[in-house]
């Protein structure tokens, strides 16, 4: 059963990856992606806003699509909101599949859709004040490959 967690608390990549991969004998491939807050131009912190209710619904729809399309054994999405400092982990996805190509593709699909279709918004607090991160055309374009 895929698991989705939207939380303000930090998570442990190690513990999550280990727990996700544990006890699998039918899965040949586990892929994880972890997003980390980059220290861009002396940014002090980042604030992530989300839309409670819709967030879980949107992620759940994206995960269901991935499970189905790649016949995944399992999937995991963790996404934080609130205040994050450089170096902190924003989010992670994990996919488990019989074969490596499916595990990779499904993880990339999840990331592409989470970027542009899950209701999160990032605001960066730097030396020149606060600024909302603008969506990139390339992130929207990335959806067209699926």
């Amino acid at each position, binding site marked *: 059963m895929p698991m989705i967690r939207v939380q303000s608390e930090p998570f442990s990549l190690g513990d999550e990856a280990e727990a996700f991969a544990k006890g699998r004998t039918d899965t040949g491939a586990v892929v994880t992606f972890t*997003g980390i807050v980059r220290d861009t131009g002396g940014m002090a912190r980042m604030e992530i*806003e*989300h*839309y409670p*209710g*819709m967030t879980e*619904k*949107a992620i759940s729809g994206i995960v269901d699509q991935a499970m189905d399309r790649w016949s995944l054994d399992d999937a995991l999405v963790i*996404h934080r909101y609130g205040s994050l400092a450089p170096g902190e982990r*924003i*989010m992670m996805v994990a996919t488990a599949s019989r074969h490596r190509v499916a595990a990779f593709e499904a993880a990339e699909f999840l*990331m592409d859709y*989470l*970027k*542009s*279709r*899950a*209701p*999160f*918004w*990032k*605001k960066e607090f730097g030396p020149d004040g606060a600024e*909302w*991160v*603008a*969506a990139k055309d390339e992130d*929207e374009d990335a959806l067209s490959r699926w």
Partner: protein
Amino acid sequence: MLDVMYFAWVRERIGEPRETVATEAATVADLVEELKAREPRYEAAFADLSALRVALDQELSDFDAPLAGVREVAFFPPMTGG
């Protein structure tokens, strides 16, 4: 009565995260026109609809969509998750 929600810089321009709006607007675009007519802060928030997204009852939708049966409308900029 509609629950109207705002996120990110839309919320900041409107000055509040949500409000209840009494409206007979037929579509999202009609609702936007009504709001813009109210106060300058709505005009500022809705100046460029191409920079905005809308969700109806927590599903992404568009500005032509009808509001019949809808209970929750949310306006926000393109999402930047991940």
